[in-house]
């Protein structure tokens, strides 16, 4: 059994495993739901996730310890992850293979030759790592600090994000197997553009992303330079036919002085060599090796300086301070914004697992740093943040969203003193709210408020409806005969009242039914009132206008989701009062 066959089986296996994890990352009891599946495993194996979060937080969260295994194997064997495990790599490999099928051997040798530009990925890696540690070197108050930007280009978060938030909802839109209703993800096109763009580039140059962009590949390249076994020529008697380059995935120039840091261990050169010279040997290639990538000091320093400048530039907008975006509602358990950005790798697992689809990848509106980080959009999902759900924090691979117990989220048990966790506060827009602005009865938000006791209470009022004066010809018992007609049944919805005002006293009765020329109401008016002079009849409407009690509101957004003002909602959650930042508090805590 040739090793290349084994490699293909490996790639297929890990790609399938990855897709299985994507499929499973949703709540439920059945076998293909979340249960105990280690759906974060690929993220945890990714040493760039581990290294990035070590750089920003100096800790290695829970399962990220798996990265040590990957690093260890890479140090001993080389970039095995790229050629054998990486699901994104497998996709590149596949598309590149399709693109190369029509190519002649000569064309293949040309397209798979080493290019100097392949060093660019090391600068990508350098840029991301310096940005992650830059904060240690200079600090301009709160502006400059470190920022974990690896998630944008780190292939594992990228492929998770792309499959979970783009391919899966697209595939499911006609199948309807994964979720009961269509999942929507804000700004999915941008995620998709990067993903599809990266895949399509394989048609021009196979493994384009792996060779030129991938910061994780660069990291593996550096880690694997002392690998004990390395591909290379077992003998110096080479005919220099160059065929080994023809199927080389890493473009590592096995024909010449092989570039170990570029080699993804695809082992194709073992198959393509007509003299059977290539092997995976405990000694260096007998045609020589090129060990280190072609980095120049000047490029190195330029990149480092750019990275150091980038984070302060990104943060000069003051979003982390006074100029914070109140529309940015983070999931429950999200750390305070700077700590959150130190950890979030934009993998989209929280958005994937969220049962109501309320967690959305943030768009460019939240700045470059905010892009693809989780933000709640109460309109997009099927409801607001569910009271008894803590799935996002449980799944978050880096604890950018802390794993919460339900006790902590609801403020029960030992957390009773802290009260429920708040992600924001709902504000009624009195200019858009039906009862407040338009005298139309509606208490949908109050009814749907899941907090107990409710965080929304109502103020009752009985304003006179427009042109509410009633021309009553005669009044007998619970019926008023009208001299000017009204539209039949217009007033019998239960919300309308007939009010009788006379001699400074007023009283009202609920209207039970109305025909064109009479109105029937619940019970008769008192004889005194009926006897008084100067009677005035009007139609009033009972309104219950919602008011938010900021002490109770948790910002879950169910009210915003349910609000019948469907465009810009008349009750909206804003970040004020969120538990994760005392600076955003709205009320003093007693």
């Amino acid at each position: 059994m040739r090793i290349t066959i084994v490699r293909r089986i490996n790639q297929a296996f890990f790609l399938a495993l990855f897709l299985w994890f994507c499929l499973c990352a949703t709540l439920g009891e059945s076998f293909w739901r979340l249960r105990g599946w280690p759906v974060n495993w690929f993220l945890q194996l990714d040493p760039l996730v581990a290294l990035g979060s070590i750089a920003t937080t100096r800790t290695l969260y829970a399962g990220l310890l798996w990265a040590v295994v990957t690093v260890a194997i890479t140090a001993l064997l080389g970039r095995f992850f790229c050629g054998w495990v990486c699901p994104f790599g497998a996709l590149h490999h596949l598309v590149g293979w399709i693109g190369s099928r029509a190519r002649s051997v000569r064309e293949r040798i040309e397209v798979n030759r080493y290019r100097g530009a392949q060093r660019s990925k090391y600068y990508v890696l350098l840029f991301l790592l310096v940005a992650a540690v830059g904060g240690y070197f200079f600090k301009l108050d709160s502006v400059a600090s470190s920022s974990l930007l690896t998630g944008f280009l780190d292939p594992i978060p990228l492929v998770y994000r792309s499959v979970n938030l783009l391919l899966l909802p697209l595939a499911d839109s006609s199948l309807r197997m994964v979720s009961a209703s269509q999942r929507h993800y804000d700004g999915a096109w941008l995620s998709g553009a990067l993903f599809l763009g990266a895949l399509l580039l394989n048609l021009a140059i196979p493994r384009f992303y792996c060779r030129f962009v991938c910061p994780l590949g660069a990291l593996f390249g550096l880690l694997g330079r002392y690998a004990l076994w390395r591909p290379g020529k077992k003998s110096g008697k080479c005919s220099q036919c160059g065929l080994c380059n023809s199927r080389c995935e890493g473009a590592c120039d096995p024909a010449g002085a092989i570039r170990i840091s570029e080699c993804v261990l695809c082992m194709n050169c073992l198959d393509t060599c007509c003299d059977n010279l290539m092997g995976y040997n405990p000694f260096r290639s007998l045609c020589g090796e090129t060990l280190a990538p072609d980095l120049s000091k000047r490029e190195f320093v330029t990149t480092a300086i750019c990275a150091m400048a980038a984070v302060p530039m990104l943060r000069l907008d003051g979003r982390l301070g006074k100029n914070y975006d109140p529309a940015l509602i983070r999931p429950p358990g999200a750390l305070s914004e700077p700590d959150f950005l130190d950890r979030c790798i934009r993998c989209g697992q929280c958005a994937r697992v969220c049962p109501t689809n309320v967690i959305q990848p943030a768009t460019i509106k939240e700045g470059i740093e905010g892009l693809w980080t989780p933000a709640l959009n109460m309109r997009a999902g099927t409801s607001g943040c569910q009271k008894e759900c803590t799935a996002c924090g449980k799944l978050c691979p880096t604890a950018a969203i802390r794993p919460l117990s339900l006790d902590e989220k609801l403020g029960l048990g030992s957390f009773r003193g802290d009260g429920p966790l708040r992600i924001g506060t709902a504000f009624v827009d009195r200019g858009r709210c039906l009862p407040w602005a338009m005298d139309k009865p509606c208490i949908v938000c109050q009814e749907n408020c899941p907090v107990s006791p409710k965080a929304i209470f109502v103020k009752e009022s009985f304003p006179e409806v427009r042109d509410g004066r009633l021309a009553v010809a005669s009044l007998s018992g619970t019926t008023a005969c009208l001299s000017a007609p009204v539209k039949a049944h217009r007033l019998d919805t239960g919300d309308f009242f007939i009010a009788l005002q006379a001699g400074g006293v007023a009283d009202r009765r609920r209207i039970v039914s109305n025909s064109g020329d009479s109105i029937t109401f619940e019970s008769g008016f008192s004889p005194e009132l009926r006897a008084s002079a100067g009677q005035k009849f009007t139609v009033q409407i009972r309104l219950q206008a919602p008011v938010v009690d900021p002490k109770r509101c948790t910002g879950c957004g169910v009210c915003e989701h349910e609000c019948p003002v469907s465009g810009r909602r008349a009750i909206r959650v804003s970040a004020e009062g969120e538990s994760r930042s005392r600076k955003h508090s709205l009320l003093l805590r007693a």
Partner: protein
Amino acid sequence: MRRAGVLETCIGVFLLTLLAVIAGGVYWYGANPPKSASGRGPGVSGVPLGVAANLPADLAPFGREETFDPGTLSDKIDGKADLYLSTGFVELTVRRFAKKTDAKSWIELSVYQMRDSAGAFSVYSLQKRKDSKPLNLASSGGGDSAYRTADAIFFAAGPKYFEITSSAPGLMGDMKILAINLVKGQPRSGGLTIESFFPHKFLDRSTISLHMKDVFSMSGLDRVYTAVYTDRGCQVTAFISRRKSPKEAEDIAAAYGKFLLENGGVAAGEMIDAPGAKIYKVFDTYEVVMHRGAFFAGAHEVDKLESAKDVALRVYRKISEVVR
């Protein structure tokens, strides 16, 4: 096409074996979901109530089973939660059963798991409904710990307190069957129960209650049974509490006497027939405080001194029968 060598094949087989191991590991992990870190919150409980077998034939479960722990109890019974929480509440399980023929006729069974049977009896006794009728759940032995109202049954058995309520009339028969079956399944408390220390004459058995905490407003006074007697038209509340030792009973009697004196009571003599029993007058009522063996007992807030002394003496003698 190149042919693979033996070593290469061996490595390949090894790697594929490794894949199988990984697949096995992932499968094991997925098939054995970790126990939820917080096993709380109304949710589907894995532990069935064990009532399926006890269910009358024409009832079937519907809806999901809900469980509440001390943290969530107030979500279910807002105002009354404190009564349970101070009495050793462990878990509440709620399950509904509907008539197979008529889905609108259903009953709701609430099972309050308490720490011990005293706690279960306490919550049972302290919230007796006014218009209740005692119910004999026949084979239960402790048949006095059950009563019914027009549409519900309440009973305590073992460390559990049960409430069965109904949505419609005409379900009482089914509810009784269910109750009897449930009682059967509970451990019976053996030996002398505290009720047997209350003399039977003039006793209204349905009034026997167990107060768990801060009894008679005295902080620290716990686990006191009370029962109401009607003596010559005067209502007398007698109380008995079994302590760990005669010493403790004596200390508590002294402490309670002191508490009465501090709160407006005056000493009003002693009872000759019951050595150590003291009488206090607290405003317009009388209080008898005594101890006998490991028992702390007496009469509480009695209008007439004679009635108080009478009942107290009878309680004293009844206890003496046992202590001797």
